């Protein structure tokens, strides 16, 4: 990242962007392709292209927009090719190529990605507690599964959640809304 928060890539930072988005983009591609190997391969291709283009991105959000859009477009192309090759009539194709489907999947994937990333920075025991509680398990059930007491679970969970909120808060400035700027 340089002065304006603009992103341009070099060998030293490219890997960290790859690490940050690779898994989520594979998960995202898989929603179109339902084939993990193919999804992995496709996302590698997208990153290869990203590197070769050497473009500059205004900020991380514009980069994300680019990544999700290219993965999606490549997926749709892939599906079209398959369709021709295997003469494979898929009912779901028309729905997969709508903008709404795209946005909904991006939202889900980003939520999963952010949760995964922040949880994986926690100490191991807390990670497990948070995962169980995201699955909807009650404190007592978590305590039973981990051979711990309910009070330990409660306090560990409280610390973990506090830490997680802070982690997310750090990245989550909320601008947003709107603006009547319209010069």
């Amino acid at each position, binding site marked *: 990242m*340089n002065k304006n928060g603009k992103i341009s890539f070099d060998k030293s930072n490219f890997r960290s962007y790859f690490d940050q988005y690779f898994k989520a983009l594979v998960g995202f591609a898989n929603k179109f392709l339902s084939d993990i190997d193919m999804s992995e391969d496709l*996302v*590698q291709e997208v990153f290869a292209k990203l590197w070769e283009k050497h473009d500059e991105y205004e900020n991380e959000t514009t980069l994300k927009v680019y990544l999700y859009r290219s993965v999606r477009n490549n997926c749709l192309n892939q599906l079209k090719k398959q369709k021709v090759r295997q003469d494979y009539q898929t009912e779901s194709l028309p729905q997969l190529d709508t903008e709404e489907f795209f946005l909904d999947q991006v939202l889900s994937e980003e939520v999963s990605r952010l949760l995964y990333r922040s949880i994986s920075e926690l100490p191991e025991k807390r990670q497990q507690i948070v995962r169980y509680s995201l699955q909807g398990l009650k404190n007592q059930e978590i305590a039973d599964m981990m051979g711990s007491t309910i009070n330990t679970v409660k306090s560990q969970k409280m610390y973990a*959640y506090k830490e997680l*909120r802070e982690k997310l808060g750090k990245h989550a400035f909320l601008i947003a809304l709107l603006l009547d700027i319209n010069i």
Partner: protein
Amino acid sequence: MKEIFQIAKLISKEKFGDLSAEERRELDVWLTKNGRNSLAYKQATSPDLIKNEHELFEKLDVDKSWKKLTKKAPSLLNRKVIRMKTVLRWVAALLLPLLATTYLVNDIYWNPETVIVEAGGAKATLQLANGELIYLEDFQNKEIKSGKEKLALNSDNKLAYHEGESQSEELKYNTIHTPTKGEYSLVLSDGTKVWLNAQTQLEYPVKFGKGKREVILNGEAYFDVAHDTTKAFIVHIANGADVEVLGTSFNVMAYEDEAEVQTTLVEGKVKFTYQENQVTLTPGEQSGLNRKTSHLDVREVKTYQYSAWKEGKFVFSREPLSSVFRKVSRWYGVEVVCEDEVILNRRISGVMNKYENVGELIDLIEEVSPLKIEINKDKLLVSKKMNE
């Protein structure tokens, strides 16, 4: 589409507990915008879906994929270039001290591309009654003394005066001063808490006397005044205006480069006086005194907007860019250069953590407006985007 990423952050945060009121509102606005959004929300928050996705993430091997990627894009591993760069860096490191003796390092070495303008932070100077100056940020966890008498404890970027009342008629005054990029907080001898924004000066007695509690403000401060019905608390502003209270929370913004002196009442009751004009404010009200015309106006406001700075946030709600830029200058120590009146009169809204460096703020402004902002040393150059 960009909005989606912000919503994703809010949803993730919500999963781990409460959202702030501001965030809650933002998410609710989005949720109720149309029926589709609430369905998308349901999908994104479904525990089963998240669990499946996380299990998939666990299975993926990033290192292995990275290796495959470097085969597809071999220039990612071009070792020769890396070595060359390292060598150059060493040469530069060795040569620099030599060059620095003859040239201004700034001009030749400082690559403007890498300039990061950092946000302000806790920083203030204190002037004692005898004229002695203390740099508070370097004087942590220590007692401020006048001779043998302990006046105040300076710790965790807060200056707390010891309780007590002055026995003599003549009061001793201290003055605290925050520079550009500075902020500080203090507790006065009566227990009143004060937060000082950047470029602010407050003069106050080390211990208050038997009569009124009086302080002098230039700049911006938030006061949480300790209740004492027998001694009114008065903030004198340099242009001659006074704010008088008994015990209450309010913000006074009295920068000389702002058109108005604004007093915003959060809790309690205050009386604002300027020459023969006087208004009494109730919570949620703000008085605005025009510095040029002396016109005094009272309006209802969302007080949070005017006190958010002390919670570490910038909150803009339809705020003219001219005013946004003045705040940016005080907090980031940069000069904002914008000659276009039309731009300056435009309004923007948004919330940001004020401890982020200036690049974050620029991104946000650029994202929501057709403006381009460049950093050039300590200047921000504002212009319209060429293609719009």
